[in-house]
């Protein structure tokens, strides 16, 4: 139903002016191009968007995790004064499903809902509250079905199928050597679980869709990948891609949670149906239902080694709960399958990584996707093995550390640099913090802090190590590229470089990095990075730690192309050999004899612009034995965590995290520190605090009161040592940096907890009841008479 009462004019939104900055060069710490508007409050986030005459959209979501829909009656909602449209799946003119990797998710559900919170209908109203009230007037007739809430159950033959393709979304099978004939002196086994983590970006989903009056639409949105959104919106609206224009709006954090669609199609549908701009904005509760989460995992491992500590084989069976729809589960399953053994040289391995559909909330990308889960398990196994061998856990890791020229279990040769042993050695050598006397300590430095519950009686200290790694960029044959346009002009007598890409700045600092590259390559002091939108070709996703590499390389190549043209002109006009030329402070300079010509004079009012599409070297899908050159770059980080635990109260204080990481090139050292520390905070959250509690397919804690994030009091000091070992294939030798810190910190912290308590702690987040042993990590009460290793030690 649509009722358009007024046909408003829909002027193009005026966007804030593009700031011109003078950034530092590559390798220098430099302030953010968006830093000033962010500290003054002027920076425009998608939630701040406003247009005269705009309507407010709202979404009706399923209260049931699994149900048949027999009917949807919108008539009462349509009659609510102030309502301009009520839309269901019947109003989706194009493809009725969407999805990043697999289009398996209804834009608006019909016949069946597969998770709690699945969108069913949309309304647009002149007031957000009217919109919400109208939702209540839509009556949906459900036949509630039993939800499938366990991935193992979903895998069974006799379990009903949630999708036509079955419940198995993906299976990665990696065979390396022969685990059956491998003989080991020492064998350790373990079962590990990772809970469902939320990205919990602080700025909830929001966007504004503006119809262009000619059948097309402009969408201002906070997202991680404009073009994949654009393509999905166009498909479902039945429009040509160029009729749908996306503009990146201010993004309040992402961490993977904005890679899938939220209201992109919905808001555009409403805008086109009403002929009015439509704003949609989720609140925090809706945000928990409106984006995918980190996959929960159950992982079974067996490690075999020789008596002197050389790995002989690893067997791993990994089961991931993908939830109701595919999202980026394929990539998560691949990452987990390929990284399951950790950064170690192991001659024999058998890995089975399973991804299942269930009626739980859909899971997808989150910082470190797939690698986070297996790192928790393989690092726990390495500690267990060290204990069984009576070896130092760091020594064991160094002894088995993978190095360039070795083969990963998935068959790819390890490219240089891969300094796993060096990272661990340096980490081990970093000074330990001084141990402060427990008695007389400031409460803030005790587990439990100012709640004043412990006075130190049961407090023990523990130290744990972990090393993690992950691919950078998109893998397994994906056509991973980025596009950059760089234009050199003269404005107000001064040379200016404009850089245009569609790379999504989500807070990580890509805009600043693009500006640094332009300044470095073109020797011009004034740089303007234009707003990201779909008027230029794709930059790919802001995910998989790939933007600095791929978009960085595209910007660098475009700058080089512009520079070549400048030098060609200098040769033409001044007879200078381009080989001896450079550009410094806006002047073309010849080696040995100074300024040849200022750019302002050379250009004489003209512009030089170059558009470059950059692709990294190709990757290949795995074969049926899980073998192939699947990944383009690997990034490594090692961490040491020191914790203090009150064993009687189950309270934890992380005293310090130390880290070593190879970043290839520290592009903006201060920003790098922020990335690493922020990544560690999220790993700490997964270790100790963060889990979406899902019972029978229903989220129990969709708020920041009940879903706990690390505060400043939870975050310890971080010591870091950065290695810059250049990757010869990457721009400036850089490596992606965002994900490795999150991967390594969870297992390091839990290892420290095990060291302090002697308990197995095979599930994250570790809760106080696991530490004190009230319940076992998988909810099992401890065996009667079992005192636990901690008690024995005491």
């Amino acid at each position, binding site marked *: 139903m649509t009722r358009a009462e007024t046909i408003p004019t829909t002027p193009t939104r005026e966007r804030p002016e593009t700031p011109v900055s003078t950034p530092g060069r590559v390798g220098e710490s430099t302030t953010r191009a968006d830093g000033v508007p962010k500290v003054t409050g002027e920076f425009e986030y998608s939630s701040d968007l406003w247009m005269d005459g705009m309507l407010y959209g709202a979404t009706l979501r399923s209260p049931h995790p699994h149900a048949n829909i027999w009917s949807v009656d919108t008539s009462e909602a349509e009659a609510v004064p102030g309502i301009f449209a009520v839309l269901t799946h019947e109003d989706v003119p194009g493809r009725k499903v969407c999805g990043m990797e697999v289009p398996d998710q209804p834009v608006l559900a019909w016949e069946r809902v597969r998770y709690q919170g699945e969108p069913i209908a949309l309304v647009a109203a002149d007031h957000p509250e009217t919109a919400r009230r109208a939702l209540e007037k839509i009556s949906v007739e459900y036949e509630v079905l039993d939800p499938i809430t366990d991935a193992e159950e979903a895998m069974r033959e006799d379990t009903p199928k949630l999708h036509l393709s079955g419940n198995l979304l993906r299976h990665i099978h990696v065979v390396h050597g022969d685990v059956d004939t491998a003989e080991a002196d020492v064998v350790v086994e373990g079962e590990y679980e990772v809970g469902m983590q939320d990205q919990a970006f602080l700025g909830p989903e929001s966007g504004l869709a503006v119809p262009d009056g000619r059948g097309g639409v402009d969408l201002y949105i906070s997202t991680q990948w404009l073009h994949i959104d654009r393509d999905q919106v166009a498909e479902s609206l039945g429009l040509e891609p160029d009729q749908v224009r996306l503009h990146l709006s201010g993004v309040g954090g992402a961490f993977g949670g904005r890679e899938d669609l939220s209201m992109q199609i919905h808001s555009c549908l409403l805008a086109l149906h009403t002929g009015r701009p439509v704003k949609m904005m989720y609140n925090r509760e809706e945000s928990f239902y409106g984006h995918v989460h980190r996959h929960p995992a159950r992982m079974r491992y067996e490690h075999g080694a020789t008596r002197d500590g050389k790995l002989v084989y690893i067997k791993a069976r990994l089961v991931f709960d993908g939830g109701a729809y595919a999202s980026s589960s394929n990539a998560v399953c691949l990452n987990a399958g390929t990284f399951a053994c950790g950064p170690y040289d192991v001659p024999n391995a058998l890995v089975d990584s399973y991804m299942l559909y269930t009626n739980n909330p859909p899971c997808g990308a989150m910082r470190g996707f797939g690698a986070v889960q297996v790192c928790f398990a393989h690092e726990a196994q390495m500690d267990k093995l060290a204990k069984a061998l009576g070896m130092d856990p760091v020594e064991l890791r160094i002894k088995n550390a993978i190095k360039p020229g070795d083969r990963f279990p998935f068959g790819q040769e390890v490219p240089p640099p891969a300094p796993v042993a060096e990272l661990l050695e340096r980490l081990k050598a970093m000074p330990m913090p001084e141990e402060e006397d427990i008695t007389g300590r400031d409460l803030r430095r005790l587990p439990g802090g100012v709640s004043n519950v412990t006075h130190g009686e049961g407090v023990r200290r523990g130290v744990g190590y972990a090393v993690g790694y992950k691919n950078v960029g998109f893998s397994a044959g994906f056509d991973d590229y980025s596009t950059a346009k760089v234009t050199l002009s003269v404005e107000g007598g001064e040379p200016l470089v404009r850089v245009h890409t569609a790379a999504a700045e989500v807070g990580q600092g890509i805009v600043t990095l693009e500006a640094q590259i332009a300044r470095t390559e073109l020797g011009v002091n004034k740089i303007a990075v234009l707003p990201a939108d779909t008027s230029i070709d794709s930059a790919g996703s802001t995910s998989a730690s790939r933007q600095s590499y791929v978009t960085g390389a595209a910007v660098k190549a475009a700058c080089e192309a512009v520079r070549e043209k400048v030098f060609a002109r200098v040769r033409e006009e001044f007879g200078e050999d381009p080989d001896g030329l450079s550009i410094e402070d806006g002047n073309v300079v010849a080696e040995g004899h100074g300024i040849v010509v200022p750019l302002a004079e050379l250009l004489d009012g003209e512009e030089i612009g170059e558009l470059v599409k950059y692709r990294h070297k190709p990757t290949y899908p795995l074969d049926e034995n899980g073998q192939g050159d699947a990944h383009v770059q690997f990034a490594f980080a090692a961490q040491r965590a020191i914790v203090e635990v009150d064993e009687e109260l189950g309270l934890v204080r992380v005293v310090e995290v130390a880290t070593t990481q190879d970043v290839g090139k520290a592009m903006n050292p201060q920003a790098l520190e922020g990335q690493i520390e*922020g990544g560690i905070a999220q790993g700490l959250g997964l270790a100790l605090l963060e889990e979406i509690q899902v019972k029978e397919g229903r989220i129990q804690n969709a708020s920041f009161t009940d879903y706990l994030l690390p505060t400043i009091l939870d975050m310890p000091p971080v010591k870091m040592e950065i290695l810059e070992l250049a990757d010869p294939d990457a721009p400036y030798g850089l490596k992606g940096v965002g994900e490795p810190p999150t991967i390594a910190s969870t297992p390091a912290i839990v290892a420290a907890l095990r060291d302090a308590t002697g308990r197995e702690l095979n599930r994250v987040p570790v809760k106080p009841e696991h530490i004190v042993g009230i319940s076992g990590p998988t909810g099992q009460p401890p065996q009667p008479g079992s005192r636990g290793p901690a008690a024995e030690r005491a």
Partner: protein
Amino acid sequence: MSSADVKLQINGQAYTVNTEPRKLLSDVIREECGLTGTHVGCEHGVCGACTVLLDGRPARSCLVFAIQCEGMPITTIEAMAQDGKLTTLQQALHEEHGLQCGFCTPGILITLDSYLAENPHPSEDEIREALSGNLCRCTGYRNIIRAER
């Protein structure tokens, strides 16, 4: 839904807003007064992004109704920089990368600015305590502490 005229003093300027008495201060500041530097992250007083000064003290604008704030001066992030010049604290947060996405930043600045006015030389423990009610998901907080020091 009966509305009323609510008179507010925000950043030294008088606003008369015709709104429902149950409308939150945060929503009135953002939607009626157009001051969108005050951010709403959780809507129930946990994240601290919506912190403003209410009668000179930091308060979560998502936990009070606008109508309760009549007669109390309100200060938002927009009033912090004077004539386009950043305060020392704003400058420090900018220079030390004490922000990434920046969504939490206005709340952190309002909270810290007010704290530092009363405690000009805090220890690191004291800064941490002062900021313990402000969530930041990007930075891990270290650069925020560095900025302050």
